[in-house]
């Protein structure tokens, strides 16, 4: 049973065809690495899967809901409740402390401050960055900032985490630590992870890989 299933995705930017008939399926709880050369369409595919960007053609199903047929507000509601996001950088609010950043998605869902910050602190501790809870993102290291971002992605209990080069700005040791913590936390909570990376050592934390080349995805599971 697939959790997210995209079929026949096309997306162009002007004359550039970023997706050229991409198919992919993601099952509940699995970690899938999306690999492929620079410019092959990995990020575009991720954005379409996550409902951030509509494809020109094709469908994206989340369970029994068609993301491409949904209204904007229903789609952003779905993103907020079911999905978590981790990007290479620039995703934390610089004016807020780390614990406030992690608590933010809960606050937006109407959870009381105290309760939201308690849950946020728990996640910061699981990712071994509770020490920076009261610092602002600008006062943390790159590796710490990414762990805070992962805590924020996980705090709402999402079913899918979309991560685009989450270790792209980190050195090997920190990158591995972040991947270990991300995949362990996802496995503990049963969340699926869609991980875009061009690094094999990062992809090695996945259960399987899907290679994107020239806007087409080779997903051996899709045909099954």
């Amino acid at each position, binding site marked *: 049973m697939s959790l997210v299933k995209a079929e026949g995705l096309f997306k162009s930017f002007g004359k550039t065809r970023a997706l050229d008939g991409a198919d992919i399926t993601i099952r509940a709880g699995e970690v899938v690495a999306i690999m492929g*050369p620079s410019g092959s369409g990995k990020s575009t595919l991720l954005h379409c899967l996550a409902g951030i960007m509509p494809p020109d053609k094709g469908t994206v199903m989340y369970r029994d809901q068609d993301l491409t047929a949904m209204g904007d507000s229903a789609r952003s509601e779905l993103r907020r409740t079911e999905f978590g996001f981790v990007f290479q950088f620039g995703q934390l609010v610089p004016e807020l402390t780390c614990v406030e950043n992690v608590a933010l998605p809960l606050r937006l869902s109407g959870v009381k401050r105290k309760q939201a910050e308690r849950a946020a602190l728990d996640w910061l501790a699981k990712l071994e960055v509770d020490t920076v809870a009261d610092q602002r993102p600008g006062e943390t290291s790159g590796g710490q900032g990414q762990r805070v971002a992962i805590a924020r992605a996980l705090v709402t209990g999402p079913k899918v985490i979309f991560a685009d080069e989450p270790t792209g700005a980190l050195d090997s040791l920190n990158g591995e630590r972040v991947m*270990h913590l991300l995949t362990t936390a996802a496995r503990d909570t049963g969340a699926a992870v869609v991980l875009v990376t061009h*690094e*094999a050592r990062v*992809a*090695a934390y996945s259960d399987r*890989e899907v*290679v994107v*080349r020239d806007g087409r995805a*080779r997903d051996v599971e899709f045909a099954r």
Partner: protein
Amino acid sequence: MSIGHALLGLLEGGPRHGYDLKRAYDERFGQDRPLHYGQVYSTLSRLLKNGLVTDAGVEAGDGPERKRYAITDAGVTDVERWLSTPEKPEPYLQNTLYSKVVLALLSGRGATEVLDAQRSAHLTAMRELTRRKADGDLADQLICDFALFHLEADLRWLELTAARIDQLAAEVTR
């Protein structure tokens, strides 16, 4: 991996008998390939003949496996030379893979399939090592990392070759 040098290195800690050496070797270096007794004794008799180890008496109890060996000065010099000589940077898989790619192109088979199958096999091996690393101690982690970085280098070559496959096809079939 030079077993002789590894055994000599272990003997620098003090005399040992063959069985003890095998155990120490397996524990430290034998993760994938524990030594056979035969290898240990043939290596020790070669080291003995070359004067790198010497007979250090027989331990209480009997049988040939109770014989103890000690490293000689020449043995120590040999270990030192081994440690200070870098390993030959060996491009170990590329030759085979390159041959496969070229032969696939020459015979009109898909070379991309060769590369994709290899990538998949490499990633499977890398996943296994990554799992082992998560469960292991620091020694396991360092040994797995060494293998992981090497496999990653192969994969980078596979990617680069995949990106140039049309160009290569044009050249080899010209």
